[in-house]
Structure formats: C-alpha cells, structure tokens
C-alpha cells in the first residue's frame, strides 16, 4: 500500500484541506470499526505514539493511538492556520508540519513565488523530506490551492516545482480552484496565468475547479431540500456538501459546503487505492490512462450522486441515473459541457454496490451521445471499489480529459489580455526581484500554446475518420 502527502497552500488550500481531513476521518471511522491502524488508514495518516509525550515514534500496526495527517500546511498569513489549530482538528496536525508568516502575499503571485519561495525554500524542503521519511512507499503529493490569489497561486506553484526537483519519482496531483469572472481580486488573471505556466510544466495531473460550479451545486441541493420534493427524507450525511458526522460542529462557515465537494472529490479519487474492490485503480493508473500527451493533463471532474434519499431500495434505474448525471453539465466542477466537446479519455471510478454489468450497460448506453477522438473510440478506464462513501450505497466520480476545458482557458487569457494591454497593476509585479516582463510573455505564450493544442484536437472532431493503413506482411 502506498502513502500520499497533502500540501495545502494559502487560504483556499487550507480551508479545503481542513474539510478534506475532517471527511477523511469520518470515512475511515465508518469503515474501520475496530480501531485498528490498517493499510487503508496509513495512506493518509500516521499512527503516532504520544503516550511518552512529545513526538513519539510511528506505530505501524495494532490499535490506533493518535492519528496524524500526512500533511504540510503552508500560509503566509496566520489567520486560517491558527483557526485550524484551535479547532476540533488540532490534534490531527503536527505542529512541525506548518509554515506560516505574518503579512501575506497581497494577492501577488510574484510575492508568493519569488519572495516567499526563496525565503522558505529550505524550510519547506526539509519538512517535505521529513514527511516522506515517515512513508514506507510514497506515491503521490496532492497540492490544494487557488489560482487567483498570491500565496496559493505563487507559493503553491513554487512548491510544485520544488517537488519535481526533490522527488521526481513521486506523482504530483494538483487541485486548483480557478477564479470566476466576477472575482473580487482584480489581479487574479495575472496570478492565474503565471500559475498556469507552472502547472503546464510541473504537474502530472490537474483537477481544475471553479467556484461558480460549486456554488451552483450547493444551490441545487438547497432548492431540492427546501422545495419539499424530498421533504425530510434526505440522509444528512449523504449530502456531498455536508460536514455532518465529522469533527466539526454543526455551525458551518459559508465556504464549507463548497469545500466539502472538493474534499469528497479527493476521497473518491483515492478510494480504490485505499480500499478493496473487484477492479482496483491505483493513483499511478490515473495519469497513465488519462494523459495521452504530457501537457494535456487537465481533467474535468464530476461527482454523483449529490445526496441519497432515505429510501433503501435502489432499483437499477436510479443507478443508471447516477451515470447519466455524471455527464450532465450541472454536475461538472468547472463551467463546461463535456457532452458537446471532444473526449480524449474518460475514467469512471465507481464505489459501492455496483457490478461490472451495471458499468458495461451504462457505458453502452451513454457512448452514442459522447464524442471520442478517433484514435480512442473506446477510451474508458473503469474501476470498482467495494466500499461506498459515507451515507451512500454507491457513488461515481467521472474524470474526463476533454476539450471542454478550452473555454475556461480562453476566458482566462482574455481577462489577462484586458489588463496586460493597458499594463494595469504590472508595476506591483515587476518591482519584485526576479520578475521581468519576460515572465509575463512566457506565461501567456504557454497558455496560448496549450489552447492551440486543444484547438488542433477539436479540429479533428467532425472530420471524416481516416484510419492509418496497417502494416503489410509479405506472404
């Protein structure tokens, strides 16, 4: 069994991370009734002997003593991290896993990347090495951050390239929250595009998320509950937005519901690697199957179902509905419609009481309405994990490498150009040591190239299918 380390950077990264650890504990508590520290737990948690006081040794088997998250919390302001350390999850984090500063990055990518990056490089590298040493077999780093600010965006991507240098064999999965059009940070397009270049070059896989989509999902659930259609028959723990059953008190903060969705995404992504099933899927298989060309590693994700009714009987029709929903526009975690764009590859990670025949039936059913690229007509990667998420009998996470990410990137480019043409706010960046005009031009070039690659693939979409001629054998 392998281990993963989570690196949460910036306000957004830490708030999402906090929800992730809460829900992870809840999930393992539901599965692991006997309190034994097993391999599934060890993928994200250490078992530390704290009886002797201070930082005890790791215990690899037997009863759970004290669980510590395999995490690194980085923020250049103290507020968010302090809140976590005073909250109900304070014992899950090791005091030595934190890197904080006081004044923040001022929503400036250059400050996060160049100034703090340089300043904290040694410290970050050392703590990462410590975290890696505690792992038997480290497979993956999960980075959680936002693109629009300064710390998450700048320092987060700095950590990304540091990880590539120090741990080249370990996978780097990045969960990035992209800013929406009405973002209140004016320079978010600059920050995002500068960060995109780093993601293009150093990440193995990126899961882009847009706040608007999360917001829409939260609203949809509220409407369903309040409209009385379901009445009081929704299981509270099953809501993909809910913290119920976790360590946190009932009073939730405004972003908690949205952040829970991302937390559930990460749990479902890693479920088949942690728990058993009839068709396992490890994290290295995600990159292998969904990334046909090195730079095209942006995966659109969707989670279903969003809630479970208290009705125990699940006829196949409802199961099929789950599959249909995964491809619908309103379940995607970015503002995109994969059904009308071109699929390069698609993965279906199923959890719970679903068998291979259900999977096959739904793939057959949905295939005709989806466009797959000519050389990957049956481009499906599937996995079956027997353990369902808390509150559900089954669930589905769909990951698509689809050209529908292109509009998101193009809008980002447009917003960037609006500011850049007028050189608005540029001086805040350029006066940072290490930043030059070329940083900007290179970054926008990198983004343009990426968009162009997607364009070329889209161009093949409606054209005639010409199969290359086979090798001829002399008889």
């Amino acid at each position, binding site marked *: 069994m392998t281990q993963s380390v989570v690196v949460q950077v910036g306000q957004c990264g830490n708030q999402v991370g906090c929800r992730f650890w809460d829900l992870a504990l809840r999930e393992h508590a539901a599965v692991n009734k006997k309190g034994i520290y097993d391999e599934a737990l060890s993928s994200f948690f250490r078992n530390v002997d704290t009886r002797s006081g201070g930082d005890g040794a790791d215990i690899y088997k037997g009863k759970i003593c004290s669980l510590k998250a395999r995490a690194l919390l980085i923020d250049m302001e103290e507020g968010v991290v302090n809140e976590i350390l005073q909250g109900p999850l304070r014992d899950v984090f090791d005091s030595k896993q934190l890197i904080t500063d006081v004044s923040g990055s001022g929503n400036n990518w250059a400050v996060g990347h160049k100034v703090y990056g340089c300043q904290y490089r040694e410290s970050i590298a050392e703590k990462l090495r410590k975290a890696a040493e505690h792992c038997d077999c480290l497979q993956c780093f999960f980075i959680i951050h936002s693109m629009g600010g300064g710390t998450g965006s700048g320092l987060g991507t700095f950590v990304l390239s540091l990880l590539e240098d120090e741990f080249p064999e370990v996978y780097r999965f990045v969960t990035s929250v992209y800013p929406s059009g009405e973002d209140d940070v004016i320079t978010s397009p600059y920050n995002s595009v500068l960060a995109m270049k780093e993601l293009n070059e150093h990440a193995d896989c990126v899961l882009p998320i847009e706040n608007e989509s999360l917001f829409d999902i939260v609203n949809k659930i509220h409407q369903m509950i309040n409209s009385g259609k379901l009445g009081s028959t929704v299981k509270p723990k099953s809501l993909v937005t809910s913290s119920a059953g976790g360590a946190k008190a009932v009073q939730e903060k405004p972003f908690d519901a949205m952040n829970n969705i991302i937390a559930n995404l990460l749990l479902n992504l890693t479920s088949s690697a942690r728990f058993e099933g009839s068709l396992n899927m490890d994290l290295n298989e995600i990159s292998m199957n969904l990334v046909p060309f090195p730079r095209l590693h942006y995966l659109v994700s969707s989670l279903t179902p969003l809630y479970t009714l208290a009705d125990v009987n699940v006829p196949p029709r409802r199961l099929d509905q789950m599959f249909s929903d995964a491809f619908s526009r309103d379940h995607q975690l970015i503002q995109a419609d994969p059904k009308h764009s071109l699929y390069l590859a698609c993965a279906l990670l199923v959890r719970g009481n679903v*068998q*291979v025949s259900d999977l096959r039936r739904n793939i057959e059913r949905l295939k005709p309405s989806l466009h797959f690229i000519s050389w990957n007509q049956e481009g499906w*990667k599937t996995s079956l994990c027997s353990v369902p998420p808390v509150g559900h009998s089954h669930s589905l996470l769909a990951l698509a490498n689809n050209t529908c990410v292109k509009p998101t990137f193009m809008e980002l480019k447009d917003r960037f150009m609006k500011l850049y043409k007028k050189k608005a706010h540029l001086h805040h960046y350029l006066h940072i040591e290490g930043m030059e005009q070329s940083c900007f031009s290179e970054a926008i070039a990198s983004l343009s190239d990426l968009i162009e690659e997607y364009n070329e693939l889209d161009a093949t979409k409606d054209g005639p299918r010409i199969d290359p001629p086979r090798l001829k054998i002399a*008889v």
Partner: protein
Amino acid sequence: MSIVTVQLGQCGNQIGHELFSAVCRDVHGTHGLCSKKENESYHDACKERFFCQEESEVPVARAVLVDMEPKVISQTLSVAARSGSWKYDDRSHFCQKQGSGNNWANGYSVHGPRHKEAIMNLVQKEAEKCDRLGGFFTIMSMAGGTGSGLGAFVTQCLRDAFPTSFILNHIIWPYGTGEVIVQNYNSVLTLSHLYQSSDALLVHENDVIHKICAQLMNIKQISFRDVNQVIAHQLGSVFQPTYTAEGGSDYSRNPLGDLMETLVPHPEFKMLGLRNIPQMPENFLAYSTFSWPGLIKHLRQMLIANAKMEEGIDWQVRPPQPGSSSRSTTKPPRFNTSIANLVILRGKDTHSVDLGSFRDPSLYTSWLTPQDAFNAWRTPRAFNKYEKSAALVSNSQFLLKPLDSVVGKAWNMFASKAYVHQYTKFGIEEEDFLDSFTALEQVISSYTIL
C-alpha cells in the same frame, strides 16, 4: 505429473483462486456418477496435478501468487484459507507496495528485472515440491500492467530456467469497450512477447463470458466473481483428469504435454480458444436432460460457425464442399477453419459417443489429416454435477477477429503517438512497438490464409 500455476496481477490471482476452488469442489462435493474406484482414481490424479498434500492438513495449491500491490493477494490468501477445503502455501507469494499503473513497460522493464530473483525462487520451490513437473500454467490479463508486462517477463524467465518444460499461458482478453484505455497497447506488447517464449496461449474473452453469464446463467447483476467462476468451470472441464489413449487404464499423467502435442503442431499457430457445453445455472441441472448426439452436434456447429456459446448459433454456416478446386476462393465467408481440435467428454456413456463429424477433413486446413488434427479425451466421471459435458479446445480462426481488432485499434492510437511517452519513460521505445506490431500482423496473416 504436477502443474505449477503462476497467478499474475489482480485478474490472475482472482481467477486462480476460483480455479482451485472449482477443482476442489468437483472432487469433494460431487458424486461423479461412476464407480467408487473410478472416483478414487480421479481424486488421486487431480490431487497430484493441482495440490500438494501434507499429512493431515488441507491440500495446498501448487501455486505462486505474484502482484505488485498487496490488496488482492492478501484477500485471495485469506478467502482460500477460510474455505477450509484447501489453501495456498503461506510463503508462496510475492508482492510489492506500488502497482504497475497499467503500464506494460513498468511491469516488463522495471518490476521484472528488479524482482526476477525473488519470483523465480518461489517458482523453483514449487517446482521442487513436485515429484514430476508437468509444466507451468500462468494466468494473467492483457489489459493491465502487472499481469501483462510482468507476466510476459516472467514467462521469458520460465522459458530460460526450464527450457524443456511446457508453458501454457492463460490470457484474459479485456472487454472491447474498455477497462483500461491503453489496453490495446498492453495487449499487443504482451501477445508479441509471449509468442516467443510460450508454448501455447489459451484465451478467454471477457465479452464472451459476460454474455454466457447474462444469457445462459441468467445472472442479473453480473460481477467479476461470476465471470471468474464461469472461466474456472471451463478451465476445470479441460484440466481435470481424463483418459487420453483409447482404452487406456490410467488417467493421463501429462496434461500440458498432451495438450501441446495434439493442438500445437506448428509454432506459428499458438492461439487456442475454449468452448464448453452445456452451461447453465446449477439449479436448472435437475430439470435438464442431455443427449450426446445433441451436444456433439451443437459443439461442432459452434466450432464451424465460431459461435461463442450454445445459444444463437448460426446454423447456415457449412464447411466447404469437398472436391472444390482452390481452397482459398471457395471457402464460405464465415466458416472457421481449424488447424487442430481436441474434444473432452465427461460423464455417462462417453465411450459410445460418435465423434465422426469432427473428423471431417473439410473442417481442417490442408496440411494436416484429421487423424493428426483431431483428438478426443474421455472419462466416465461426471464433472461438477453435469451428467454429460463436453469441452472443445480449438486451434483455429476463433481468435482471428478479436486479434485483428485489437491490433487495428492499437495501430490507430500509435499513429497519433498518444500515450507513447508513458512507455518510453520506462524504456519501451517506438521500435519495440513496431516490432510487436510486425510480429502480430504476421500471426494474423498466417491464420487468415488457412
């Protein structure tokens, strides 16, 4: 003689477990509809073949379990031990912490050489436990990374270490509509490499078994366990003891050798398909009666028309008429030409079954006579509660279409160079791909012009 089974990857381990369970169940649970003496003979032959018996303990399967991540092996070991009727040797497994990531190159070029010694040591130990080693049976899937890549490497090692032993690879052909996106690459690389070191490739297609589960076994929500149990039943119907010579008094001691001798006359033709009749849910057996002429007629038509199961057979397909001038132009289009066939009969009245229809020369290619191309094995001992059952192992054009389809899709993908960087990362270059494609196009061509 004993067979050492090597279970590779998740699929290989899951199927291997079902196989040993099915064999054990057949021997212990069912009566066999024959004399006590016959039953005991059968029991002993089966034991020698598949199990090693310590004094008063449960039989221990002659198997080596290999996987690059631990979950499946630990599950397999514990479920077998819990059954109480057989188990695996606790030391006879090898696993690592991190899987092969569906990457053939990772399995073949990285895990293979790294763990060669440890794995071959385990195989050597199992081989030494056998009084007489009858050969190796490897179980693997083609779609993933460990079964396929590491499996191909291990097969090569087996060939090097045991140059005179028989090696039969049992291969699972993945679902056409995808379990793994790079499954076609992995399949092409696996088949081309296995062709060099293996004696024969016995293939089961997931799509076919799935249909059998749906239509013949009436299973509503088909799980991989159901699929694996059907596969295990079909394997059992081939590998459980039989008499090979006419009127021979002992059960054949050399199953793999006999199989190779009858079915693989030429090294260019190694692809074997398997058919089984009848196949139905266990609770139907009490209400069904079978006649040998009916079973044989269906089985023969399944062979000729390349039907995957006993329902939906195309009865229009007929063998070419004798006396036609040129073989290739007058062959009916959907007719399945055979190189060699083996029919295995189990149960009541097997001695009286007329197999003349299988000896028709028009079924076979021109360079073998039916005397050489066709063989039959029998036993009066019924298999797994079926009063009468017949299995067909065929070296014919059964697998031509699936093979052509897989190579075609892989070639399409290769032309766009998609995913190739994932393989070159671990040392499999574009030339290696081209070599594999060439090798398989050669096999396709050979089977096509039969």
